[in-house]
């Protein structure tokens, strides 16, 4: 099979989700690519009437799944923990067609030693489950770098597969909207894959069907508007859930991080070989902290202040607070921001439904006064976020990558995907005030099709 017949296809929404998830992570990030490898048989006739069949394989990435606590999946040498991997991926296992790794501030997109080791293990682990061939398993490497003047942000990516001991790049094609992910360039016929796992129709299709549109009677514009409205309602209904689960995830991640920092700090102290009494006191104090369910930052302050523990005083801050807390606050703000922007958007839409000509004007107005008379405000989120921020400022890292206590995993898995898609879109739309209808339809469709997972 020629290389030209192998393609990675991805929808714009999935790609933007991938980038978004990476950009908002503090440092490195890894995760899995979910989708399906589709096989097409194209029959062509030569001049001498010979029928030639060519097989084309398109690996379609439908969505992604980030892994915030990657260190629980593998150890330092890169050996994966299959049990935890199964726990993490759960029912998505059959859809995993690849994995990705994002790094900041690197110039080259070469797989590292651990990447190669992981790829092989992931490939054999997931290929046995979904029947996809091992050499079609993907590695996607992404990086971001900033120019010297910090004026240019560069994002690069490459899709690789492992074949005969080598990593070779595969071209990527970004699909247009709709279900024509499989369409070949320049062909009007839509080929159907030979083998496609029977799955439920995606969210967008479901939505369209639920509307029972009568295309013959209604004008295209009205239909588009209906679709958009429905999409937005769907989106709106998702937002509270997303906010809730996102906050929950963030909180759990924070706790995990805190506990981990404590463990690290404890180890360091033990290493310092303190004199007997103070050593016992610290370890006791730490143990108490570790077991206390609700982490109380005042205990920590106490520990730091205790004056007979000079060494500890030096050690704990260095290990327990290695990162600033902006990532956490950022994510909190994101939640609030979504709430705001979405309510805005809805208002705009409503306005537009009534007075279509004036919609642009009204949009401007609402844009200028974002918080006033939103139909459904989410006040509890906003207030909560403020006080949480204050608490956070002295503590750990917030979300992005984490370091994990496996016990927290089930909670973290919940609803990770949905938040992100909706966030992407609400944001995107809030910055483009002048939307025509095709755009509206497009963004609604995009956001829904990428939530296909749930």
């Amino acid at each position, binding site marked *: 099979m020629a290389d030209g017949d192998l393609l990675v296809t991805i929808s714009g929404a999935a790609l933007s989700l991938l980038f978004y998830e990476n950009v908002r992570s503090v440092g490195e990030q890894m995760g899995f690519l979910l989708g399906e490898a589709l096989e097409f048989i194209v029959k062509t006739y030569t001049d001498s009437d010979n029928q030639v069949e060519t097989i084309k394989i398109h690996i379609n990435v439908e969505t992604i799944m980030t892994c915030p606590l990657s260190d629980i999946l593998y150890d330092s*040498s890169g*050996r994966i923990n299959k049990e935890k991997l199964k726990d993490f991926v759960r029912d998505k296992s059959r859809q995993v067609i690849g994995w990705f790794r994002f790094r900041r501030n690197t110039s080259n997109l070469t797989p590292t030693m651990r990447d190669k080791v992981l790829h092989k293990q992931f490939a054999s682990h997931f290929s046995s489950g979904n029947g996809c061939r091992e050499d079609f398993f993907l590695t996607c490497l992404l990086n971001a770098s900033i120019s010297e003047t910090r004026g240019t942000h560069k994002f690069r990516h490459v899709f690789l597969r492992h074949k005969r001991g080598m990593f070779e790049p595969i071209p990527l094609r970004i699909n247009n909207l709709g279900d024509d992910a499989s369409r070949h360039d320049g062909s009007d016929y839509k080929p159907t894959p030979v083998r496609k796992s029977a799955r439920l129709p995606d969210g967008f299709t479901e939505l369209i069907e639920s509307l029972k549109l009568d295309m013959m009677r209604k004008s295209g514009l009205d239909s588009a508007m209906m679709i958009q409205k429905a999409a937005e309602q769907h989106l709106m209904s998702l937002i509270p859930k997303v906010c809730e689960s996102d906050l929950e995830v963030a909180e759990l991640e924070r706790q995990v991080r805190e506990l981990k920092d404590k463990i690290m700090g404890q180890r360091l102290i033990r290493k310092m070989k303190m004199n007997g009494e103070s050593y016992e006191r610290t370890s006791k104090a730490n143990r108490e902290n570790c077991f206390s369910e609700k982490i109380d930052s005042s205990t920590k302050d106490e520990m730091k202040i205790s004056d007979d523990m000079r060494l500890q005083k030096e050690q704990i801050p260095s290990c327990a607070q290695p990162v600033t807390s902006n990532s956490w606050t950022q994510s909190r703000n994101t939640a609030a921001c979504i709430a705001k922007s979405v309510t805005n958007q809805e208002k705009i839409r409503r306005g537009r439904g009534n007075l279509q000509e004036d919609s642009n004007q009204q949009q401007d107005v609402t844009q200028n006064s974002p918080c006033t008379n939103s139909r459904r405000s989410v006040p509890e989120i906003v207030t909560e976020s403020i006080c949480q921020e204050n608490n956070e400022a002295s503590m750990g890292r917030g979300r992005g990558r984490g370091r994990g206590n496996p016990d927290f995993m089930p909670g973290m898995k919940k609803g990770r995907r949905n938040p992100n898609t909706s966030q992407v879109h609400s944001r995107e739309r809030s910055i483009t005030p002048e939307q025509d209808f095709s755009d509206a339809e497009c963004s609604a469709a995009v956001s829904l099709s990428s939530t296909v997972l749930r």
Partner: protein
Amino acid sequence: MLNQQHPLLNTIDSYIEPLLKRVLQTKRLGVSYGPIKLDSVSSSCNKNKNDCFKLSIPYAGEHLMWNVLFDSQCPEMGPDFIFNDQNFLMNPDIDILSTWVPSLVKWNPNETDALLNVLMELLLYYKEHQIQLLGKQGDRLQLEYSTLVGETEICKEDIEVMMLLGLKPAEARFLIRISMDYTRLPPRMNKSQNDEAMLLVTFYGPDWNRISPQLYLSKTLEDAIGRPESLHIPPLPPNKYLMDYVPEVIKFMEEKINSAVQCFESRKEFIVFLLVLQRGSIVEYDAIEFNWIIILLEHRDFHFLIHFNLPSIFPKEKPQITLQSVYHVTSQGILYREVLDDAPYSPRWPMKLMVDKLLTYIIENAVQKFQANSIKNNRF
């Protein structure tokens, strides 16, 4: 002190710093003598503390550039690597990797030696990788390596092999450490580092039948036995094998060391006799390496200095004798001096006779002429 040598070290995240410091302090990793260098640093997340860096590791006369990637977000996670040699660990297997690099499997960031151990194990694995490459390049190189390890005293740890297949023409390099007893060598000034001798043999051309050996000596060893260019190491014809050649080089080196020791003893003896015979007139002399001595003599109320400079291969080469007047200044403003060329000399003379003959010649023949010249050239 190390922080001053490596200003980049201060920008490294605090939990990595002790590990890296330990690596940079290491004098030797593998055969090549030379420290590991910290090349460039960067951060995996946008913090002001860096957690990724590039190390330059000496190996077989080359420098391996290894990117070491830590993650400040996961301090308990061990380092990841990108090797400049793409062929190394191109298709790693987790089980094989774990057996070669056990320190990475049981990574403990609180252990200061953790990174050093991982690097050492990886370097050993790299060597094994190169030896495997060597085996794929025909019998000659494989035979050279196996006989060198099996038939000579050279042990595996003293050989580093490197296949440079990307070069035109492709090269195979053997770096062999010549380990011998350097303590016999006479004491030297500025002996800050240890003595080291390396033999770098490069094979190239069709069937690897073009061979060029090169000897590398550490600076202090160069001072003791001469620069490699002037040493004229034995030639290595294509039909000779390393297992025969390397012992030859070792023997050659031993001879050089012996002669250096002998020369040192002769110089010492020469100076000792001068000290004994002219003990009242010694101005100063080199009491460590015995390279020179200055005495002050008087002949018919004319005082003059005699500088004896003993060459490193004394007594094969005669000492350089310089007379210097204490009264007469040249137009340049320095004391008038003259090199004595025609003093009688034979390397076979016993030292006592040599010293006697030289002094007698100076007093009886050279001084009058020197005195006359001094007065003639006097500026005043």
